[in-house]
């Protein structure tokens, strides 16, 4: 059943606030994601990289990463992102006979993601691929960008001593010629 424009806008607003409603970005506070939007990303990110002895991607702040970057360097993806999340929620709702993805059991959520990843829901493949890539970026990139809280992934890989970001370097200043 096709939605009216008003219904679509309302459904979309459930995940992403309009730009003018955003406060200044101050991670780990959310800027333009609503709590539900962030929750959706956290759930999916934790399916992609689940918690074990080390935090899952959702727990490590991938939603903060996406939230921050969509207001910065990834602005040009914002429309694709909004439309993708909207499609995701409506297709999921349709698939589960009116139940929201957020309210499904973890098993149902995982099964649905598996199905998308296997190509079983072609309409959701593009947004899945985007969420997937952003999840890896947020989990493995420098925590300066909002994700990888407390360098969770770098600690897991045991590289926190050698990896750097924009504003810091982990290397002592060398003397000329020293190696």
């Amino acid at each position, binding site marked *: 059943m096709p939605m009216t424009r008003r219904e679509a806008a309302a459904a979309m607003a459930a995940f992403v606030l309009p730009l003018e409603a955003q406060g200044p970005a101050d991670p780990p506070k959310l800027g333009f994601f609503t709590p539900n939007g962030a929750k959706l990303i956290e759930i999916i990110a934790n399916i992609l990289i689940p918690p074990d002895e080390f935090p899952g991607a959702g727990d490590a702040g991938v939603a903060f990463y996406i939230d921050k970057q969509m207001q910065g360097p*990834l602005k040009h993806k914002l429309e694709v992102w909004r439309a993708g999340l909207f499609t995701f929620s409506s297709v999921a709702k349709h698939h589960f006979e009116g139940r929201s993805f957020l309210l499904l059991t973890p098993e149902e959520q995982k099964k649905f993601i598996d199905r998308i990843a296997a190509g079983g829901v072609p309409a959701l493949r593009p947004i899945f691929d985007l969420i997937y890539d952003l999840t890896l970026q947020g989990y*493995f*990139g420098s925590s300066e960008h909002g994700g990888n809280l407390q360098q969770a992934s770098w600690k897991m890989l045991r590289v926190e001593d050698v*990896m750097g970001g924009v504003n810091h370097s982990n290397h002592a200043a060398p003397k000329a*010629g020293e190696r």
Partner: protein
Amino acid sequence: MKLDPVDAVVVGAGAGGGVVAFILAKAGFRVVLLERGREIPFAESGHDELRSQRTTVLGNAFGPDDENHSRMIRSPFTGRYVKTLPSEGGYNNVAACVGGGTASYGAMAWRFHPKDFKMLSAYGLVAGSTLEDWPITYEDLEPYYEKAEQEIGVSGKAGSNPFEGPRKKGYPMPPLPFNKEATILAAAAAKKGWHPFPIPMAINSVARDGRPGCIACPHCVGFGCEVNAKNGTQNTVIPRAIQTGNCSLVTEAVAKEILTGASGKATGVAYFHKGELQEQPARVVVVACSATETPRLLLNSKSKLHPNGLGNHNDWVGRNLQGHAYSGAYGLFEEEVFDGTGPAARVAMCDFNHGSEGVVGGAMLANEFIRLPYLFARNVRPPRVPRYGPEFKKYVRTYYKRTVGVKGPAQEMPLWENRVEVHATAKDHWGIPVAAITTRRHGQDALTGKFIAERAAEWLKAAGATETWLQVAGLNGTGGQHQAGTCRMGKDAKTSATDAYGRLHSVDNVYVADGSLHVTNGGFNPSLTIMALGFRVGEQIAKDWRKA
């Protein structure tokens, strides 16, 4: 505004343009060096994987920026154009800053193999390809390779590569030491009867020229150097050019067109600087903007006498765009092979550059630069491992430090259809028509790629890898950072854009000095060859246009 005339204006302060500016300034020419980007200090680019030259997902620290520099990428299969930003795949980005690609490159400093200059003679015609010999030989370029190694500063071990062409002089610095994976790989290659050696690098192994030696940090390729031990044109020849007092560098200068006079000769360059259009008159114009932007500038320089763009009397400008069909393999090891030391790419061999059955050309093989966490998680995974979930996470965690990559820049067959044009309607921030790019690979490239990938896997297995998998280049071409070929040098003015010194056949005071000149692109990273050509083109200009 019309500026005071100078002897030469060089467009592009990268590998080629930086060198030409230096040679001309030293010869007493008054030179203006235009660069569309600016200087990028280390404090600004840092060690951020997500904005490095290899992973531009959050933009490219070394430019160009997404806002002002889009291109149109055309599918060779459907003919459809897609607007593409610099941070997106398929853009064919090199960088836009002082030093160009050399400010953030991996700094492998290869001389091409003598046979790389004679691909047609060595292999004969390849159906569908414009394969050709260069108009110059390795011997012609050898003195200029030497100048590039000495002026830019290359560390390496002369004589350690038995397949290298003859050299008159050794490297100015000893090689960087092997890291753990290079040590393991070198021993395995020697056991196989192959010929491993330390990769020549434009990185200080010892303090030189007032800058320190490499501190072996893991952030090398794609980054600026924290201690300024990596040598590009931005910290060698460009400052030396400026020191002569004869060269002014103008950054954030976006070239619009090369201006021509009634005789058809170039009279200077029009460029935008801080929102204003400037005209820089000059006796000689040197175009060194990369194999994408050089043909774009020439094609955008249309006039009555040059209706198809400057130097494009025969439709060869922008043709034969090529890069490398990078292929290789990864291997998993039982022990940790990652020791965290950069630049990590330390050992190579040239046993498979030429003369292999069923292959046209080939590639050097080398171990990879450090795989940083995001790119590792995204791209380095055997086919049996799922791309997400608990098993994926366990794999990344277990094998991040137990994986070695070996790959090689497999030669691509040049194709006439692979080209840079200017788009009919799409314009950049300044209203200049953007580059439109069409590339695909020749079927031969897949064979070469597969052969190279299989040798890489063989090497990894010999080194003790318990599991290997191949990564073979597909049919979707990209000039990428190694883009070349779009203003081919040649003896015949009918089938090339410039003569053997980079001078446009149809305009005698315009020269090209970048990878555009490459007839074929060798089985190596191309920067030292671009620099060597810069020395050769620069010296020729100094001779041709000496002041009376």
